[in-house]
């Protein structure tokens, strides 16, 4: 099962690059949804079967794979935008930076001591690389929806790390964290709709009325 989990993690890393490199919002949302579904499957691959596990898998696939992407899709449709235009940093530089961060996170993870049962997994570098990719998307894109996608990728990175901690985190806290992230995305979705109503676009670089002179 180890190698299967690692292959899924490679997929997660590839999806990071898809989201970093595409300008089509719908495509980007789909990629993140696919990433969410993979994250839902992962716990089943590394932990022994239990009903608690089935529940978590179902919740994660439903939330990350369907509900949140649906919300974002609706926002895209209601605002009638298709593409991210003129990001603060071009697609090629972001992709290169993403590759650099991915390499660095493998280096970072190599320096830190791992528990023996996790030695052969790629969880730590995959988690940090995904986190950094999310951060990159967040900081380089203009559209509010792209920024939410960045936030989601960042959360996914954190989630991958959380998989290593199933024993340390009681289910209540796990559920609470998941719920918070979900509610956060919901609120962001609502705010997006209000932004499109106020500014008739989802371009956050137009949000400049509060700049210091």
């Amino acid at each position: 099962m180890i190698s299967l989990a690692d292959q899924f993690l490679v997929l997660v890393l590839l999806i990071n690059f898809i989201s970093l490199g595409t300008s089509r919002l719908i495509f980007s949302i789909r990629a993140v949804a696919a990433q969410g579904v993979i994250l839902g499957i992962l716990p089943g691959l590394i932990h022994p079967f239990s009903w608690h596990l089935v529940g978590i898998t179902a919740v994660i696939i439903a939330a990350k794979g369907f509900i949140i992407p649906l919300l974002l899709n609706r926002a895209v449709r209601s605002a009638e935008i298709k593409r991210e235009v003129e990001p603060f940093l071009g697609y090629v530089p972001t992709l290169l930076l993403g590759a650099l961060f991915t390499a660095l996170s493998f280096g970072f993870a190599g320096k830190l001591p791992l528990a023996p049962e996790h030695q052969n997994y790629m969880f730590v570098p995959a988690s940090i690389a995904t986190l950094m990719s999310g951060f990159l998307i967040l900081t380089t894109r203009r559209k509010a929806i792209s920024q939410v996608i960045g936030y989601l990728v960042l959360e996914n990175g954190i989630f991958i790390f959380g998989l290593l901690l199933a024993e340390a985190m009681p289910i209540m806290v796990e559920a609470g964290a998941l719920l918070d992230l979900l509610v956060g995305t919901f609120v962001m979705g609502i705010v997006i709709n209000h932004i499109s109503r106020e500014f008739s676009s989802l371009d956050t670089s137009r949000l400049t009325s509060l700049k210091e002179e």
Partner: protein
Amino acid sequence: MFAALIILPLIGAAVTWLIPYDRLRPKVFSLFALGHLGLTVQLLSNTPPPSAGGWFVLDALGKIVLLGTSVLFLFCAVYSIGYLYYRRERSNRILCVGMLVCLSAASMVTITHHLGLMWVALETTTISMAPLIYFNRNARSIEATWKYLLICSVGVALALIGLYFLAYATIVAKVEPSLLLDDLVRDAGKLSSGWVHAAFVFLLVGFGSKMGLAPLHSWKPDAYGEAPGLVGAMLAGGLVNLAFLALLRVYQLCLATKEITFFQNALVSMGLISMVFAAIFMARQADFKRMLAYSSVEHVGIMAVALGLGGKAIFGALFHILANSLSKGVMFLASGNIHRSYNSKNTSQVKGVLRRLPWSGALFLAGFIAITGSPPFAPFISEFTIISSAFIQGRVVVALIFIVSLAIIFIGMALTVLPMVMGEVPQESESTSYRDTVWTVGPPLGLLLLVFLLGVWIPEPLMSLLNEAAALLEVPR
């Protein structure tokens, strides 16, 4: 008892949600705030033992923050009765519900020793406040809400990965995996230093951005500037302290590991950067609510510096939690009144406040004197303690930067505040229906009296509480 503290505001949120009348809702809201303060006082005087396997512990640090939050909340709630009367044009349902949900989550932060649960509660306070910043439903407030939501959520998410690193350090060290503060402190010596170090960096950045330490403060002026006065008071006097409490928990952990010097230095430098930033942006600030936001950046900076210095300054930091939140309450509530009366928060239009609103103007002026650290008000005591401690420890450079920033901030703030309150009301000034009433002036006045009282006399129970809390943060020799 612990459960009641969390459930009572939630019941309040449900009840205020169901009330259909905008006039009645703030009154019920205040009743629940009063009930919460009653429970808080009860818990403080008669602390129950830890419950639920050490998850819920009310220690001295939690008590200070809980007390400050609950008192400020009550004053804000009472103020809302008068304030929302002038905002009848829109429903106040979301405002009352959001505030109460936030109070519930805030109480959770103060009474839990489980860092994961604390994180969940902290993130809940962030989300529950977002709709309130959007109270005015215009383009500027949506921009502020977006910035606040995104930066704080990302910040708190980074703190979560910091917590995960800590938990993973326990797994690597083969001790009982746990995120309970007491377990972590006990096993701190065995934890792998690489993970712990990385964890502290993420936790500092995460909670630092929620607290608004420079250079992670960019959401603050917008959010504080656009939020209604009482929401601003709650953000600057309540939520800031919760994030600081989270940093105090990390500090407690650092004390048990070997990382304390690194963490202390990081706190001192971030704190000083915040103060210098505030000093730069405070000058010539044309919007008085944004000015208050920079003042908040300054004061979180002061708390961070004090915590980083250690020694006697710790007492100053803890006392400043209360002093800052009460004085910020005065300033924000008074500024809410001024904003209502002039229908503007630009100092080019707001002049002669003392003539137009003698009470609110005087409160704003007194609040300014208090918040800049002048005697006989409470912030003077804390700031003086911190500066003298810095000199005693031989940290002359830190002390000098601290004093110079305070002086520049005093001048910068005076240049905005004095022309505002003095002088004549401009001819073209818009006339509004707002008049000072007991309900809108009473709460900030009450807060000011508290700030004054704490400045001249600290009651014995509070003194011993502060000392007990400071002992928890002492660097072992």
